[in-house]
């Protein structure tokens, strides 16, 4: 199957899973914004999703995408390391046009993975997981208020968002390029689109975290 045993195929898996995760982030971030606009509305969304069948199907699908993306990230990274050969260059220099993020996708991925774990413990383990186990989940708004009233949580989340921003500034345009949706005219355009989307997503997430940190101080 070409998705496993050809380099371009493996990249297609990488970019389709990555791009799907980006769409999820967009959805998740818009939901979070409701927490600023209307806390009651946010609790309604939490109740609506909860551990209902559609939310569970979504969670399983999402976990699947993430696992495939991370698995392929490792496979590709190991193969690429081998392709460099045994000897490394003595002197290396950077090229102006090469983005820093594009060379550090795996490192950024590790930071993102760490952030995902922390985030799942903070929220998912106290809400959906509890509900799956048959108990009564904690209130979403209260969790947000509590979590972001601690300065170190805010710091952890901001580092996480920064890593996501770097990962996505390269990831979004790279995934379009991998699918072949690019040419000389569109190259600067899709890079611009990539930056806009990455910034938008990260700003949406960060605004909620910062808003509730500031609220906790007042």
């Amino acid at each position, binding site marked *: 199957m070409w998705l496993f045993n*050809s*380099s371009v195929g493996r990249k297609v898996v990488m970019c389709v899973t990555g791009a799907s995760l980006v769409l999820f982030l967009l959805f998740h971030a818009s939901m979070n914004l409701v927490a600023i606009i209307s806390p009651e509305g946010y609790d309604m969304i939490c109740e609506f999703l909860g551990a209902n069948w559609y939310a569970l199907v979504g969670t399983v699908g999402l976990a699947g995408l993430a696992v495939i993306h991370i698995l392929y990230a490792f496979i590709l990274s190991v193969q690429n390391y081998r*392709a460099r*050969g045994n*000897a*490394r260059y003595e002197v290396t220099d950077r090229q*102006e046009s090469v983005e820093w993020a*594009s*060379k550090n996708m795996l490192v950024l991925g590790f930071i993102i993975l760490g952030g995902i774990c922390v985030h799942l413990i903070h929220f998912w383990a106290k809400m959906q997981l509890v509900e799956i186990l048959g108990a009564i989940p904690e209130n979403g708004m209260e969790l947000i208020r509590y979590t972001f009233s601690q300065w170190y949580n805010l710091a952890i989340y901001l580092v996480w968002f920064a890593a996501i921003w770097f990962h996505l500034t390269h990831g979004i345009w790279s995934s379009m390029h991998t699918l072949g949706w690019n*040419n000389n005219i569109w190259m600067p355009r899709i890079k611009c689109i990539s930056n806009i989307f990455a910034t938008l997503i990260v700003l949406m997430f960060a605004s909620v975290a910062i808003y509730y940190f500031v609220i906790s101080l007042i």
Partner: protein
Amino acid sequence: MEKTINITLKVWRQAGPKAKGGFETYKLDNISTDSSFLEMLDVLNEKLINERKEPVVFDHDCREGICGMCSLYINGHPHGPDSAITTCQLHMRKFKDGETITVEPWRSNAFPVIKDLMVDRRAYDKIIQAGGFVSVNTGGVPDANAIPIPKKDADEAMDAASCIGCGACAAACKNGSAMLFVAAKVSQLALLPQGKVEAARRAKAMVAKMDELGFGNCTNTGACAAECPKSVSLSNIARLNREFICAKFKD
């Protein structure tokens, strides 16, 4: 007036493919800034021969930027610090007096070192043999000028065709990927009516060969296009992906 500089060279020496290599340091004085990088290496070799030492082995042929043989990694850049030129087109005026210049061979699993700075780049030839051509049957050949081709396509095909197969793209790539080379070869033919007929087969065969030879997976960092002596554009890789993915979906 002629200007001269004194330089220190750190050159990779390796007796053979299996031998353990290492850097040797050489001092060269009074190198004319008008000389080319390869002429400077000739001066070094002449000096080594006079001292009854073994000269440094490096690949070169045309010395005018068209054959793609001069595969040297100089101060962290394939083909040296200048952009859009080959090593043989690099001048010593690009270096400062007293500078230490590190010269290494291409480092890639698919380009093993033969001796010193010379690597085996036949992997690229094998990729070409896998499909980088247009099959021609014997018999009457139609006049190429009888086939109208839009100027834009012809220009893009010509730009892709400027690839000289030097290997700098794979040498520059942190993933050891040969995608820019393969993309240039696939694009140059896929853009023209004569090559279009076999485009799907060609993309599949060349990518399969590239993977088989142990080149890495492209992650679109763009170091290849930044270092390419012929400025082959990164968007050719998007075209290769497009050709390959469409071909696979059609199967």
